[in-house]
């Protein structure tokens, strides 16, 4: 691999990593900070993508569809937290797993009833339709670079919100001791409802802005669910910074795993096992630091 292609692959890796962070960011809040195991995270991602497609079709503009979609999914998140999740905080994690798995099935059926089972595409919205030529044969889509910029801004905002604001302090306090926070006079119910809804909206937002590059199709949520959990676990539960680092690490491992040829003892290891690279990384990190890279010591 010459230097030129190495640099392009590096860009691919970072860009993919940022996209992974975006997808996992909602889960970082809900699972990482609230401690709720939300298997339906992928479903919210899918709902976001379908909303972007149907709203952009109805409204006529992707950019107007975005805020409308975010508001709708915040409302959906509030409703689900109030109706279902709030009843399970006192219970074992297994109940959350069962409930949110049920939500996956329910959302999948609803999606079929409302939007059907077809594959849909959303055109890349103006003004990001172009590509920047890098070599004579390769160009880089501007929209992907724009996504990266949005994700970086989002990462900084999330970090500041959670680490530096009063609201973030209450959220973190609630995560470590719910009863104590409540007895200090903070409305923890409303706070959690807000955080859960924010997490849902983030997942849906990720689905919306990646829809033009990933297209919209049934089962798309399942593909992102596992990788989202891997990001949160590698990064360390509760750490936004960790999730960002983990996502970029996965981006690097996945990208270079796919394009490197590696033989060990006559057996072709890469790229044949590239699909496993992410999990090997996770296993390695957990052996080294069971709490994840930036997780609190257990």
């Amino acid at each position, binding site marked *: 691999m010459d230097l030129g292609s190495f640099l392009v692959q590096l860009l691919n890796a970072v860009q*993919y990593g940022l996209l992974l962070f975006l997808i996992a960011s909602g889960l970082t809040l809900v699972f990482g900070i609230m401690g709720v195991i939300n298997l339906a995270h992928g479903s919210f991602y899918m709902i976001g993508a379908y909303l972007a497609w149907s709203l952009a079709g109805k409204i006529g503009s992707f950019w107007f569809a975005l805020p409308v979609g975010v508001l709708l999914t915040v409302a959906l998140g509030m409703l689900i937290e109030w109706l279902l999740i709030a009843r399970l905080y006192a219970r074992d994690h297994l109940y959350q797993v069962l409930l949110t798995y049920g939500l996956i099935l329910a959302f*999948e059926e609803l999606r079929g009833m409302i939007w059907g089972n077809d594959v849909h595409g959303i055109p890349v919205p103006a003004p990001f339709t172009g590509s920047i030529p890098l*070599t004579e044969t390769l160009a*880089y*889509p501007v929209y992907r670079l724009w996504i990266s910029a949005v994700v970086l801004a989002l990462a900084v905002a999330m970090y500041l919100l959670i680490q530096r604001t009063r609201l973030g302090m209450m959220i973190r306090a609630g995560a470590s001791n719910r009863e104590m926070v409540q007895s200090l006079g903070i409305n923890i119910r409303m706070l959690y409802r807000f955080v859960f809804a924010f997490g849902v909206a983030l997942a849906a937002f990720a689905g919306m802005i990646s829809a033009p*590059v990933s*297209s919209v199709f049934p089962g798309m949520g399942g593909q992102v669910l596992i990788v989202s959990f891997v990001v949160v676990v590698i990064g360390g539960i509760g750490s936004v910074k960790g999730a960002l680092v983990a996502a970029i690490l996965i981006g690097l491992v*996945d990208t270079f795993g796919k394009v490197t040829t590696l033989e060990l003892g006559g057996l072709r290891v890469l790229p044949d096992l590239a699909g496993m690279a992410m999990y090997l990384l996770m296993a390695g990190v957990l052996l080294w630091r069971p709490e994840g890279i930036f997780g609190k010591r257990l």
Partner: protein
Amino acid sequence: MTEEKDLRGRRAFLKQGGALGGAAALGALLPAAAIGQTGKIRIGLMLPYSGTFAQLGVAIENGIRLAIDEAGGKLGGREVEFVKLDDESDPAKATDNANRLITRDKVDGLVGTVHSGVALAMVRVARETNALLLIPNAGADAATGPLCAPNIFRTSFANGQVGYPMGKVMAERGIKNVVTISWKYAAGEESVAGFKDAFTKGGGKVTKELWLPFPNVEFQPLLTEIASLKPDAVYTFFAGGGAVKFLKDYQAAGLKGKIPLYGAGFLTDGVLDAAGDAAEGIETTLHYADSLDLAKDKTFRLAYAKTFKMQPDVYAVQGYDTGLLLVQAFAKTKGAVDKPALIKAMEGAVIESPRGTWRMSKAHNPIQDLYLRKVVGKENRASGVAVKALDYPPADRCKMPGA
């Protein structure tokens, strides 16, 4: 107005339900031996009715029903009863489901399915129980290759069979160096193998095979690699949502128009609305195409659209041909469920299909014409026959048990 329509619909439904219930009750009273020759013929439909492939399951069932309805609604003079089962495209449940239809529901013939993993489990059950199995879609080469059996037939295609003609076409065009890209799973590997077989025979060279783990859709690193390898062309196998994303990424990476993209027909089937102009001009091979100049295709498309209020696709055609095969076989045995006679009839069947006339190979896979198609507007327009009467993968990969 609509209310009246609804009521009529409901009454018709009730009537049908009543008739079905009555027949079932009658069936229960008759001794089993009598059902064997005079009762209804029971056809098991093990298809996906939920999940990603749900529409494919419906299209296949519609096709089968249309073919049997056109033959007077009967098989060899006997009424037909369908036993439907949703296979959920779940290989883990496939063996139990197939066994249930064969041993509990005692179907006379089993039809299924779309997903290759599920179909291979059905193949194993059919080999153990000697039940008659018709595969209306799943392209796994093995089903009519190493795992073939006298009682197993396929009415669709083998994965390698769809890749092979594209290799021939590209070699004939004088293309020398090709990079292939696909998912690393059976369908992708078999498609690329079929392509490579014909392409290298024709003097071409596959300079690099690029693979992604299924169902990963992060194509960017591999597109970067294609751009730096600069092959004469790219051959690809992707389907569904992954195909749309691949077409769009290929265009966004600036490769479209610089390095020509070719593929197995699934790349551009059922995805043209979603892919938009990223698919325009892409050439693929498949055993069916839009706007075929065949009288049979025109009448089929008209009848299908009229009956089901939707346009048929390649899956509907495969279902229709499955129905035609059943009609022909049972006509030969005059409705008797005589397995050796049915198998003999199916082996000799000539199917006048909307895709063109075809017959069964020694391995029980269609010997059929493969079309070269080009995306024009929202259509996979046939630009000619890539290979006539293709029997592929070679029938010698199948050693028929007992033959």
